C-alpha cells in the first residue's frame, strides 16, 4: 500500500510538480493550498508524512506544525521554504523536523527526503488520538 504524503504548498504550479514527483516515485500524495484547507479536511488522520511550506497564507508552516502536533500527529514533518535565513532555521530547528528543505530543491531530493523520513517511522499512519 502506498504511503499517504500530504503536501501543503500555496504555489499551485509547485504543488502540482511535487505531487507528480511523489506519485511517480510510488507514493500517494495529496496537495493542499493552505493550512486551513488541510485542517478542515480529514486527511490528517490518514497521512504518513507531511511536507509543509513555511510561507503560507493564514497559518504559516511552523504554526501548522505546532497545531498538528497538538492534535496528535506524530509522523515526520518536513519543512520546505525559500527563506534560508537564520530566523527560519532557528524556528525550524526548534521543532525538530524530519528534514529542512530549502528552495529550490530538485524532485529527487524531495523524494529522497520523504523516503528517508518514512523509513524511520512505522508503516501505519502514525495518528494517535491524544
Amino acid at each position: 500500500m502506498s504511503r499517504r504524503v500530504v503536501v501543503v504548498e500555496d504555489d499551485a504550479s509547485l504543488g502540482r510538480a511535487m505531487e507528480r514527483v511523489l506519485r511517480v516515485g510510488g507514493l500517494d500524495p495529496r496537495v493542499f493550498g493552505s493550512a486551513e484547507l488541510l485542517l478542515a479536511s480529514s486527511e490528517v488522520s490518514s497521512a504518513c508524512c507531511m511536507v509543509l511550506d513555511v510561507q503560507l497564507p493564514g497559518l504559516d508552516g511552523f504554526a501548522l506544525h505546532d497545531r498538528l502536533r497538538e492534535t496528535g500527529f506524530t509522523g515526520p514533518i518536513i519543512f520546505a521554504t525559500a527563506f534560508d535565513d537564520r530566523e527560519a532555521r532557528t524556528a525550524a530547528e526548534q521543532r525538530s523536523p524530519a528534514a529542512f528543505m530549502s528552495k529550490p530543491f530538485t524532485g529527487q531530493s524531495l523524494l529522497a527526503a520523504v523516503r528517508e523520513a518514512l523509513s524511520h517511522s512505522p508503516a501505519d499512519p502514525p495518528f494517535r488520538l491524544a
Partner: protein
Amino acid sequence: MYQHPNRVMARALAPLLVAASQGPRLNPGWQRIALFVFAAYYLGARLGLTLTFAPLPISVLWPPNAVLFAAMLVLPAGRWWLVVVAALPAHLISELQGGIPLTMVLCWYLSNVSEALIGAFVVRAAMAEANPFASVRGVLVFLGACACAAVMSSFLDCAFVVLNGWGQSPYWTMWFSRVIANITADLVFVPAIAAWILARGTPFPRRDEAALVFGGLALAMLIVFNSSLAANWPAAQVCIPVPFLLWAAFRFGPRGAGPAFAMVALAIIWSAGHGVGALASRGPVENAHSVQLYLLCIGPTLLFLAASADQMRRGVESLGVSEKRFQLVLEATREVVYERDMASGALWWSRDGLAHFGYTRTGALRDFTSLADLVHPEDLPRASAAREAALADGRTLWEAEYRVRRANGTYAHVHEKGFIVRDSQGRATSMIGALTDTTEHHDTEELAQRLAQASRLTAMGELAASIAHEINQPISAILNNVDAAQALLETGRATDDDMREILDAIREDDLRASEIVGHIRGLANKRTTQVETLDLNALARAVIRLALPAARRRGVMIQSNCAVLPPVRGDRIHLQQVLLNLLFNGMDAMRDVPVEDRVLSVAAQANGEATVEVTVRDRGHGIPDGQMPRIFDSFFTTKPDGMGLGLSIAHTLVTANGGRIWARNNDDRGATFHFTVPAAG
C-alpha cells in the same frame, strides 16, 4: 499808426499764453477766452484794414476769421459758443465804424463765424490728434478745411452782399477774391497761433539758432520788401526769404514755420500795399494777386515741410527712447539675453548675461565671436536645428535646450527661447534669444533620479528575500517536474500525455520566472519618466503580489478593495514604487502590533472625473502630531535602520506625476496614506 504785426500778435497772445502755462489742459476761464477772442478779433480787423492796398479797398487777407478758426482749433468744442459770442462785440465795433448798415454787418458776422466753424469742424472730424500741424496728413486736412470753409462761407457771404444790395462787383468775382483772401488769411494766421498753443509743454530748442534764423529773415525782408535797395534787383529777389523760411520750418517744425511765414506775409502785404518792394511793381489789384499767389505757394509748402520734419524728429526720438528703454530693461534684468543682427552677424549680450557665464564685455569678443562657439559640440546640431527651422519656415518663435560653455570651461544647461524680428517683407533682420539657466534644475533632476534609483535599490534590498522567494517557486516547480519526467522515462511508464503535461507546466514556470526577472530589471534601472495610460487595479495587484511574501514574513495581511476605475496617466514604475513604499511603510508601522491585528488595507476609487485616489491604511500606532508636517521630508525617519527616503521619494514621484500625497491618522488606530493620480483623457 503802423504797428509791427509781431507786436500786435504778441499783445493778443499774451493773456492766452499766461493761461496756457498754468494748466496741463488748455481750459482757461471763460473770461480769458472771451477777452482774447474779443481783442484778437478787433485787432485783426484793424490789421486787415491797415493792410489794404490803397487807394482801393482791396484786402489781401482778412485776419478775424482766421483768429476765430485758430481759437476753435485750440479750444475744446464745448467752448466754441464762447468764441462765437465774444467775437460779436468786436465785430460790431470794427464794422460799424465804417458806416456799414447793421444788417450787412450782422450778415458778415454770420459768414465769418460760419467759416471758422466749418473749418474747425472739418479738422476735428477728420483728425483724432489735436495738432494738425504735426503730421503731413494733418496739414492736408487743414488745407482741405481752409478751402472748404472759405468756399462755403463765401457762398453765404456773397449771397448776403447781393441780397443787401451792397457790393457792385459781379457775384463770382467777389466770391473768388473772397475765397482767396480767406484762405490766405487762414494760412498766415492759423498755424502761427495754433501751432504754439497746441505744442505747449515741449521746450523750444536751440534758441540761439532760432534768433539767427528770424534775425536773418527779418533782415532779408527788410532789404527785399522795404527798401529802395531792392528797387533795381530782378523780380526773383522774392526768393531770398525762402531759404530762411525753409530753415525755420525744417529745424523748428510748425512752431518755427508758422510765425516765420506770418512775419513774411505781413511784411510783404504791407510793403506791396504801399507800393514798395519786389511785388509792388504794378497796379493794386495785380499786386494783391501777386502777393496772394506768392503766399499760397509758399505757405502750404512750408507747412508740409514743417510737419514732415516734426514727424521725422518724433520718430527718431521715440526710437531713441525705445532703444534706451530696451537697454535699461536689459541692464536691469537678470535674464541672459542676446541679440544677433542677421546682416552683420554682430552679437550683443546683456551685461548680466555675460557675467552669468563668467565673461566680461571686453573679454567676450576675444573669447567667442558667435553663439556657436559657446554651445557644447554635441548639442550644436540640435541647438541650431530649431532655430534654422524657425528661420526657414517664417516663424517668429523657437525653443531649444543645450549646454553652453562658461568662462571657466564648465558647461551650463540652458533653455533658450528665441524671437525672430522680421521686416515688412518677412526677412529676418535680427534674432533675440533669452536663455534660462536650467543647470540646477538638471542637476536636481539627475539627483532625484539617482535618489529614486537608490530607493529602488533599497526597496530591492528589502525585496530581495521576497524576490528570491518569488523566483524560487517556479524554479523549484521546474526542477520537480524535470525529475518527474526523467523518472517516468526511466521506468518506461511515460505516456505522451504525461510528457506534454509536464512540458507545458515547465514552460509556464519558465515564463513566470522571466517575468520576475524583468520586474527586477525595471527596479534596478536608472530610467527617465515614461508616462502611459495605466490600469491602477492591475498595477496595485502586481505590487501587492510582490509585497505579499514580505508581508507574510512580518505577519501582515494585505487586503485590497478596488472599485471600477477609469484609466490613469502616469509612469508605471514610479507609481509601483510609490505604492510599494507605502506598503512597506505601513508594514513597518505595525511592527509592534499583535499579529492578528496586522492588517494593511489598500483601496482605490475615482475622485470626481479627473483623479483617482489610492489609500493605504495601516493599523499601527499612527503618526504623532508633531511629526505630521515632516513625514514627507527627506531623511526623516523613525526607523532605527531607515534611510528616511521612502516617503519623500513617494512624495516627489506623486507630485511629479501630477497628483497629491497626504496622510491622516485614522479614527480608530493607525494612519492612512492617500495619493492621487490624474485620470487619462
